[in-house]
């Protein structure tokens, strides 16, 4: 079904691998489309309670495939037609999304990593806002997310100087959540995703709505959305399960509903 990515659902986790390893998983329009379709499928699949995005081979994603770029193209339209819809689909997804950054995440690959809820970084990972090196600006939502994660000053530094950020530095500056050694990479990523997949999925989706609302709404409107979110959460089976487990002094077993 997919040619540029691999997509499998197993034990509540949707694994999405960018799968153009000989091109360092560089984006072509087809890959934009397939990532979008896979995220859409994961979003509407009740079996899926966590999504992991990672890269085949040694890179996470090196950004736009330059072989698809020609001098006459309208760069803005490429974003509107291909990258924007993909990033928007990720933003709309109500399942937790983990970026498992196995190697270099450059350009739009960096942007893709930023669009995830979590970034787990392998010791081999690095981030590079390469756009400025070819006279372009960070795109695909890059600076929107980057400024929220590391602040204006650091975001300006990373995007204007275009210096590479190591995995360890990424964790230090709040760009990534966990540094994972190469030896335990797969095991630790799997454990992290499994943990997410066992949490109250509906509540996570509602938390994600509130996190987005922070940047989109006035405080007054935010409080109203928060009230609506809590109303919905209060009606879930998982809320009842959490309360019952707490009362019964046992571990809760969440269904995600």
């Amino acid at each position, binding site marked *: 079904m997919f040619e540029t990515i691999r997509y499998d659902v197993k034990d509540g986790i949707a694994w999405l691998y960018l799968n153009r390893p000989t091109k360092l998983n560089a984006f072509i329009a087809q890959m934009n489309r397939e990532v979008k379709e896979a995220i859409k499928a994961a979003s509407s699949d009740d079996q899926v309670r966590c999504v992991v995005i990672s890269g085949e081979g040694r890179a996470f994603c090196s950004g736009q495939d330059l072989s698809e770029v020609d001098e006459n193209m309208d760069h803005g339209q490429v974003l509107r037609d291909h990258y924007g819809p993909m990033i928007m689909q990720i933003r709309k997804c109500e399942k937790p999304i983990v970026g498992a950054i196995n190697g270099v995440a450059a350009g739009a690959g960096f942007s893709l990593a930023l669009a995830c809820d979590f970034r787990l970084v392998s010791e081999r990972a690095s981030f590079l806002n390469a756009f400025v090196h070819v006279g372009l600006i960070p795109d695909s939502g890059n600076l929107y997310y980057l400024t929220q994660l590391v602040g204006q000053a650091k975001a300006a530094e990373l995007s204007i100087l275009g210096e590479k950020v190591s995995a360890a530095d990424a964790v230090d500056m709040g760009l990534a959540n966990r540094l994972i050694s190469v030896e335990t990479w797969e095991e630790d990523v799997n454990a992290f995703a499994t943990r997410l997949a066992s949490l109250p999925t509906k509540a996570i989706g509602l938390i994600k709505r509130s996190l987005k609302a922070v940047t989109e709404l006035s405080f007054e409107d935010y409080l109203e959305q928060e009230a609506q979110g809590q109303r*919905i959460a209060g009606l879930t089976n998982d809320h009842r399960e959490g309360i019952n487990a707490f009362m019964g002094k046992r571990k809760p077993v969440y269904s995600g509903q």
Partner: protein
Amino acid sequence: MSNFDFIETYFKGSTAVIELNRPRQLNSLNTKMISEIVVAMEAFDRNETVRVIVLSGKGRSFSAGADIDEMTEANPISLELLNQFAEWDRLALIKKPIIGAVHGFVFGGGFELALCCDVLISASNTEFAFPEVGLGVMPGAGGTQRLTKLAGRTKALEWLWTGERISAETALKHGVINKIVYPELLMEEAMKFANKLAKQPPLSLRLIKDSVNKAVDSSLYEGMQYERKNFYLLFATQDQKEGMNAFIEKRKPDYQGK
């Protein structure tokens, strides 16, 4: 209520709910469905126990538009003789508050139907559009008129000419809808608003709607005279006495609609 083919109706307290019920066709409107909506609305408008009417759609969308199949063979003469939009004119004569609760696609005739409501509560996932231009036609049931009165000529022309989809946020920004709520809570929030209105004095609501509608269509002077008469008229109601007495006695009023 009597049996309908394309809508479902029920009562909740003093609110009457009409649900478009062709979910597999995304509630696309056919002439029969419009007739049923009009019949139900007029019945509720006369029903003394009903204070507010809520209009919503079953399934994934409020309404994706008119049934195109019904129209492909139409010609000007057949349309004139069918005079289908006369039914829509009757919707504008409903005196009680109509709250539209919309979600998913609100396209074409579905958008026009939504614009017949007095208040629109929208799910956050709603998309509004007038795609008629893409079929070589244009809205015919009030779309160009009502949208322009709400959003102004500038945006109305842009949306009607391009046929592009408008998000709930954009619709809110331009005064097309009243409130955006999470999709899960659409009916709950619409009913909450209906309950709020159901506690207000019905004749006040009625004459406020009458006066506000007058403002849309008349000069300020004419509208002011009209408003004044409605204001005076309310002093003939029991609810005016009840409202003012309750205020003086520091208690909650209990309105009878008389």
